């Protein structure tokens, strides 16, 4: 019973973190969002290929050696925020109306334990709805694998792997965080 409860409490805590993060992004509170990122964060979103059955190894572009949609750390992420906050980043000016829907939150691992976790790996599904100017609309859906590390009060996002369910990107840009 206790173990189930520990798992439950941790899962809810992590879910709350992910929801709070989504809240900051959707409310455009980017500086607060940056504060949730570990200094050594890796933010990676590979591209996907159509491959023959059995050749799944070649489906994703490789982190740190291939071209990816995103493959960067906190410095670049901070610059992206800074760019939006210039108020003249035309691709986000006027700014998009965005909702991050996070579902299927699964805590895959917790160390040292669920009862006293310092590090957690969590997977979820996301749907991002982005609408801007008059009728421009994008829907992006996929999976996210996050690695969280306890940092003082809160948790810190130490690594994010984003799997978008697309081949040709169906949006003209990726000016938002996923």
């Amino acid at each position, binding site marked *: 019973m206790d173990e189930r409860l520990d798992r439950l409490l941790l899962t809810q805590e992590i879910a709350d973190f992910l929801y709070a993060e989504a809240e900051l992004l959707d409310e455009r509170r980017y500086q607060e969002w940056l504060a949730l990122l570990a200094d050594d964060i890796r933010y990676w*979103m*590979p*591209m996907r*290929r*159509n*491959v*023959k059955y059995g*050749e799944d190894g*070649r489906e994703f*572009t*490789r982190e*740190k*050696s*291939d*071209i*990816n*949609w*995103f*493959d*960067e750390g906190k410095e*670049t992420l901070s*610059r*992206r925020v*800074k*760019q*939006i906050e*210039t108020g*003249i*980043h*035309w*691709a986000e000016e006027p700014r998009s109306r965005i909702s991050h829907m996070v579902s299927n939150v699964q805590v895959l691992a917790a160390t040292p334990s669920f009862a006293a976790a310092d590090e957690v790996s969590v997977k979820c599904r996301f749907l991002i709805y982005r609408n801007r*100017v008059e009728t*421009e609309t994008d829907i992006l859906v996929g999976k996210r694998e996050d690695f969280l590390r306890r940092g003082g009060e809160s948790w810190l996002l130490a690594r994010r792997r984003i799997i978008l369910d697309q*081949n*040709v*990107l*169906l*949006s*003209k*840009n*990726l*000016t938002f965080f996923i």
Partner: protein
Amino acid sequence: MASNGTKGYHPGLVDLDAGEVSREIFVNADIYAEEQERIFSRAWLHVGHESQIPNPGDYFVSSMGEESVILCRDRAGAIHVFLNSCRHRGMKVCRYDEGTTAVFTCPYHGWSYGTDGRLVGVPYFREAYHSKLDKAKWGLVEVAQLCNYKGSIWATWDKEAPSFQEYLGDFTRYLDLQLDGWDGREGQAEILGGVQKWLVPCNWKFPAENFSGDTYHNISHRSVDLAGIGPSGRSRRDYGERDISRKLHVCIPDRGHQTILYLMPQGEPTPVAYQSAPIVSEYFAHCEAEKRRRRGEYGRFVGAPGEVFPNTALLSRQPRTMAVWHPRGPHQTECWRWFFVDRDAPNEVKEFLRDYYIRYSGPAGMTEQDDMENWNYAHKASQGVIARRHPYSYEQGMDTAVRDFEWQGLQVPGDVVDITEVQSSEQPMRNLYRRWNEFMMADSWAELATWRRNDRDVAE
């Protein structure tokens, strides 16, 4: 009626004397349809790079105009480009992005084609066809001409088209900046894994003219300049050499190719870049020296955005990429971008550049994002019946181009506008649309190969 505008293209729409181009050519559906026939089925198009298919049986599925094509290397090692459509009922024979295969077998009725395009397998050939089907006639549709230029693969559907080299004309030297090593060695380029593909809601000519050398839109990149993206950790996207070089617009008349070019001073070494990263800095310093040695005076050329007519973009400096703007209807473009590094560069250099490329280019690129926003809404705001009555302005630096431009003992091939002081011109766009107009009007390559007539005139 103008809302679907004039029926088809007529020359008044591109008026280079006035420096004006009608919005119709960007938004009109009939003109778009004509472009498919007159431009994309006659011009040389970029398909890919041989390093993507190193071994026999390797293939990469690419696109030419609206259509899917297979770039592959046959068992004998020869490179081919085929229309990705079965001859029997049109099924897309290869639906993978890349891979290795012995044959392409159609999923519908099982016709199979060799990597050389020949129809090698026909189920029940003897029984159902009584061995009568002329297999030789029903192989995959192959391009009329293919050229492997320093590793980059180009093709055209038109057998009357001139050779790729002749098609390039004097632009060869500028394409070399893209394909040779930074140290000047031939064809040292390597493609990083992963070709970016994304859709932009605009006509394909918006990116085409932008990459022809739009030196006027830096203002739209102000936000990234403020945020800072530079490989040197500096906030400008460009480099020290700008301060000492001549910045030129170079256009190849009759060909429709154009580019920005930086011309370094004679004798002076190119300033050090990437100081923040010693290994990278050293590598480029070394390469610059080598290049001067190998290329002599031409080593003073430093590349920049350019365009091979009609829809292939070059960017031969960092981020070093090539892009193709595939038409997907009058109002949509599918952008493909290949990323280049020197094959023999140290890994630290490749890694360093890769990071920069990713944050600079494509849909997630802090710089390119703002371009696409502009292309999208420039196109959208040009569709209406009133908007179409008002042409775009291309008057910038009219009649300022010179032939035989020379600086410090080096002559630059092509028509040149020195924009070092004037900052910008629209000569490259005028060059692009002049050629575009010729393609839209000419009924044959005999007409299109204007330079041959010119040569003859000279001869006479």
